Structure formats: structure tokens, C-alpha cells
């Protein structure tokens, strides 16, 4: 017996690893998070001995259809329609559902950008299948089932999640969890121009849209040097001190969830499981205690420095170099020394 709300399916019919790909803001490129997911899908598809399919939907996206192939896709299914020039979660969700229903992929992955996080559970629900949010790796188990792996509680553990009797197996993946694959223009693949029913947006209208001017600052997930502050910073002003240090090191500032909760720094600059995963060469954690959910976000950092007044702070266990001391003294000392070095031209 299965739930009467679930349509009957034949598991055998489902094959292939699919990725939903979206164009970026100006519609000139496939967004980075989609390309990264194509790379991850390639690896899984090779384990399953199957193909990588990309669902590319939007308005004017036909001209981008070769690009997923360069990054590892075998088949690209394009729905290019003017009615998709405005994004509505219900409309895009239904189009992705229709498209995937036609080809029945075994796995369907959606990038967990803000739009993707809004859309993915809607698509999964349309299939009456489950979905695993923010997976960080994928595998195939002894039964041949796909295993989606995610950190469930604060980043201490990895949960292996299987979907035994429903398809597709669905997952969402945050940007920068997987690397962007090498672009290889010699790769070949097939492009299918698809026509699916595009429902009108019901009960929802976009009234206005103002593009956010891209900040001059490097986003933290791309920064080579990050100076991050935590609860112990104590104030917004404290972050100005961190900013001076970051500027001297050619880096950017970031914060822990507690610093974001306190309103000292924006959520787009939050490092951790509930923020962003970062991979700088140098990560300086200032007055951050080192809760597991934070440490989870700096696993890929090459070197971690911790500055903390509490010698027992867990962050020291996750740091290469630790300084026990008050950041109000240590950070100004670092700034002073760096300014001296710079003045003397000791370091280029």
C-alpha cells in the first residue's frame, strides 16, 4: 500500500541524472551554481553508467544551450518561451515538472540559489517525491540506489538519505559546494527543443524589479582572504576594525551567524552551514567561538587563524594558528605591523 495521493510509478523507467540550469541576471551566461551542479551530476552519472541531462528553461535561453555540454552535459532540454521571461515559482515549477515527467530522470538536482530553494520543493511535491536540501555529496549504495548526503544538524554529522520507492530522487545544492568544471568546447551532446504547456501565472503578478547593483566587493565565497567576526566582536564598530585588517590583506570581511543575528553584518556575508561555504587561502576567525555549524563553512579554507580571548574556545581545534588574546589589542597590533611592513615595502 502506498499513499493514495501518490501516482503509481514504475521505478525501472527512470534513468539519467538531470540538472535544472538557469541563466544569470543578464541572460548571457548559465549561472555558476548550475555549471557546478552539472559537474557533480557528471560524476554521479558516471557511477550509474547513465547520461547527464540539463533542463534549461527561460526566455532567450536557446542560444545558451551548447554551454551545458561544454561543462559535462550529454543532453540539453530547452524550453525557450517569452512567457518565461518573468520568473514565477509556480509557473517555472510546473514547467520543470512537465519536462521531467516526459523523460523521467532517476535523479533531478536543482541549484539552491534563492530562486532554486524556492522552486525545488515545489517541483518535488508535484512528483510526490521527497527532496534532500543542501546536499554536499552524492553516492550510489550497494543496492544501486542514489544516496544524497547532507549535514542535518549544525554541521557535526552527515546524513545519508535515500529515496527507495519514488522518483525522481531530488536534491538541491548550494552554490560553491562543488567546483565549476573545466570548460571543454570539444565535448558533444544533443540539444532538444521542447514544447511544454506553460500555465499562466495564477494569482501572482510581478509589479516591479530593480536589479541590485553588483557590489564592488568580492563576494565572500570567491575571496582569497577573509577576516570574519563573531559574537565576541560586540558591535558594528568592531567590524570596522576587521575591515581595516581585511583591506590591508587584500581580503573581505564576513561574520558568524551570531554576528548576523546581531545585525552587525549582512546575511550574504555569513559563513557557516546556514550561510555560505568559503574556500579562501587565509581565513581569520576573530572572536568566533567555533560552533560546528560555523566550522562547517570553512572546511575548504587553506589556512585558518583564530583570535579569541577564551583559550578553551572550540575554534582553536579548527585553526592552524591561534592567538589567545583580546581582539581589541591583537587586531590593532596586526594592522600596525602590516602598515609598517607596507610602508617599508617589505612585502609586495
Amino acid at each position, binding site marked *: 500500500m502506498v*499513499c*493514495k495521493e*501518490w501516482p503509481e510509478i514504475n521505478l525501472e523507467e527512470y534513468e539519467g541524472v538531470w540538472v535544472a540550469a538557469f541563466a544569470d541576471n543578464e541572460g548571457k551566461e548559465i549561472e555558476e551554481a548550475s555549471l557546478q551542479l552539472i559537474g557533480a551530476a557528471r560524476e554521479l552519472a558516471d557511477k550509474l553508467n547513465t547520461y547527464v541531462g540539463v533542463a534549461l528553461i527561460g526566455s532567450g535561453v536557446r542560444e545558451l544551450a551548447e554551454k551545458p555540454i561544454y561543462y559535462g552535459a550529454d543532453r540539453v532540454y530547452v524550453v525557450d518561451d517569452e512567457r518565461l521571461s518573468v520568473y514565477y515559482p*509556480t509557473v517555472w*515549477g510546473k514547467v520543470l515538472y512537465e519536462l521531467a515527467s516526459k523523460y523521467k530522470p532517476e535523479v533531478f538536482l536543482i541549484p539552491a*540559489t534563492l*530562486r532554486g530553494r*524556492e*522552486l*525545488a*520543493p515545489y517541483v*518535488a*511535491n*508535484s512528483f*510526490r517525491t*521527497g*527532496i*534532500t536540501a543542501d546536499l554536499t555529496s552524492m553516492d550510489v*549504495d550497494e543496492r544501486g540506489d542514489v544516496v544524497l548526503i547532507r549535514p*542535518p*544538524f*549544525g554541521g*557535526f*554529522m*552527515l*546524513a*545519508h538519505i*535515500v*529515496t*527507495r520507492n519514488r522518483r525522481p530522487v531530488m536534491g538541491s545544492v548550494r552554490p560553491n559546494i562543488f567546483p565549476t568544471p573545466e570548460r571543454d568546447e570539444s565535448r558533444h551532446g544533443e540539444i532538444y527543443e521542447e514544447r511544454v504547456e506553460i500555465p499562466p501565472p495564477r*494569482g*501572482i*503578478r510581478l509589479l*516591479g524589479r530593480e*536589479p*541590485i547593483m553588483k557590489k564592488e566587493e568580492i563576494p565572500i565565497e570567491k575571496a582569497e582572504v577573509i577576516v570574519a567576526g563573531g559574537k565576541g566582536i560586540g558591535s558594528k564598530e568592531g567590524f570596522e576594525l576587521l575591515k581595516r585588517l581585511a583591506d590591508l*590583506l587584500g*581580503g573581505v570581511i564576513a561574520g558568524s*551567524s551570531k554576528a*548576523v543575528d546581531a*545585525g552587525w553584518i549582512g546575511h*550574504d556575508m555569513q559563513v557557516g552551514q*546556514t550561510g555560505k561555504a568559503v574556500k579562501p587561502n*587565509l581565513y581569520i576567525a576573530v572572536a568566533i567561538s567555533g*560552533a560546528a555549524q560555523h566550522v562547517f563553512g570553512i572546511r575548504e579554507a587553506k*589556512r585558518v587563524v583564530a583570535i579569541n580571548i577564551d*583559550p578553551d574556545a*572550540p575554534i582553536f*581545534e*579548527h*585553526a*592552524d594558528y*591561534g*592567538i589567545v*588574546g583580546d581582539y581589541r589589542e*591583537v587586531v590593532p*597590533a*596586526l594592522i600596525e*605591523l*602590516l602598515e609598517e611592513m607596507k610602508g617599508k615595502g617589505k612585502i609586495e
Partner: protein
Amino acid sequence: MLKVVVGIKWVPNTTSVNIDPNTGTLIREGIPSVVNPHDLEAVEMALRLKDEYGGKVTVITMSPPSAIAGLEHVLGMGADEAILVSDRAFAGADTLATSYVLAKVIDRLDYDLIIFGQETIDSSTAHIGAQVASWLDLPYVYYVTHAELRGGKLVVRRSLEDAHETYELDLPALISVAMHSLNPRRVRVSNKLRVKLENPIKTWSNEVLGLDPECIGLRGSPTALSKIEMVPKVPRKNEVFRGEAREAAKWLLEKLKEEGLLELG
């Protein structure tokens, strides 16, 4: 008059949870449960709409009975009534089965608007809102920072990575509130007194709802946990300096220089 339903979750306060370095296990003791902080922002948005336009705010949660403390908290903030959706048959539900029960509960209520928090601090999936919208076939928008009524329709603002957007939604509709966008109000003593006197918390079990056991709880969940493993710790050097600030700074910069990590900006 706006009838708003808010869904909340009673969660262990995981942001303060840590690992016992000796045993490698979770330190669970003394970790209190709280109303998911981002759900308090959803309650706050509902209460602001009620303050502005009048109406009623009903808060629902699917949880073991311990969540009554959380429902008392949001009633203390000013919500009108609360429903604890609780039954052993609901246990072990993944987000599909959870959203199914919540949708069936909401379906029995008279509502114009459903509000959820952006995500929870324990599992942070952000699934439930979209799934409930799918079950009820409602228009929905996530990450709302501001909502108001204009000519009987809900106008909402939200921000994505690349744009600020304004949408108009016909009611009934579903929204989720952007985390860190609102400051939830405090509990008021007068509201708490009302809770004591009127007891506005109802409990709905599956006897009330009568849902097919195949669609709820563990059995109604397509996803299953096959294994849990500890996240391996990334090996680090763990060199620590204790001493005067300028000496410490010198020590650190020397180390970074040796490794070629100092490139002054």
C-alpha cells in the same frame, strides 16, 4: 479583516550545540528547545498585518506536546489561537509528509494568508512553504521583507541575490518571511494572562484529521535516512600563541609570510 495562519516549528536550539571533544558525540544535555527564531519573524509579520488591517492570527505546529510552550510564547506575542497538531502517527515524517499534514490542517481553517519563516535552524531545508503551496495549489513567494494590502490584494517586497522584487498576490496566498528582516515583538503579560484564562490552544490528532496512515509519518515519507556519520574533522596545525598582543601579531605574520600567505592589499 485578514485571517492569517502561521506555521512554526519547535526546535532544539542547535546553534549552541557542540561536540564533546573526548567522546565525539553530540552534547545534548541542557540544550533547550525554542520556537525556530525565523518563525518568530513570520509571527511578527502576521501580527503587523493584524495591527494594520484587523483580523485573526492562528498559529499551527506539528510536534510532540512539548511544543505547547512554544505556542504559549507566540500567543503571548499576540496571536489569537493555536493548534498543536500532534500524533504518534505523524512521527518520522520527512518534509513531504509533514507538508501534507500541515496542508490538510490549513485546509480545514478559514484563511486568507499563510506565512512561514524562511527556514529552520535545525534542518534549514526551507521546503515546507513551497510544498504546502503545492498541496493547496496557492500562489507563493519566499523571502518577503514587507507585506501590505492594496485593494484586497497582498503586495509584497522581497530581495534575491540580484534584484529587489515587488509582487501582487491574490488571496489566499502563501509567503515566507526573509530571515533577519523583522524584529519579533516581546511576550506581553496581558496576553499571557489571556492564555491562562481562555486556553486558546487546541490539539488535533489524526483522530480529528482522519488522514490515510500511508500518507503520513514514516510511511508517508519517500526519503529515508540510511546512515549517519560524523563529519571528519579537517586536520589543522593547532599552533597557539599566548602572550602580548604585538608579539602575537609578529608571530602570526611571520608564519603567514613563511607560507606565502601575505600579499598586502
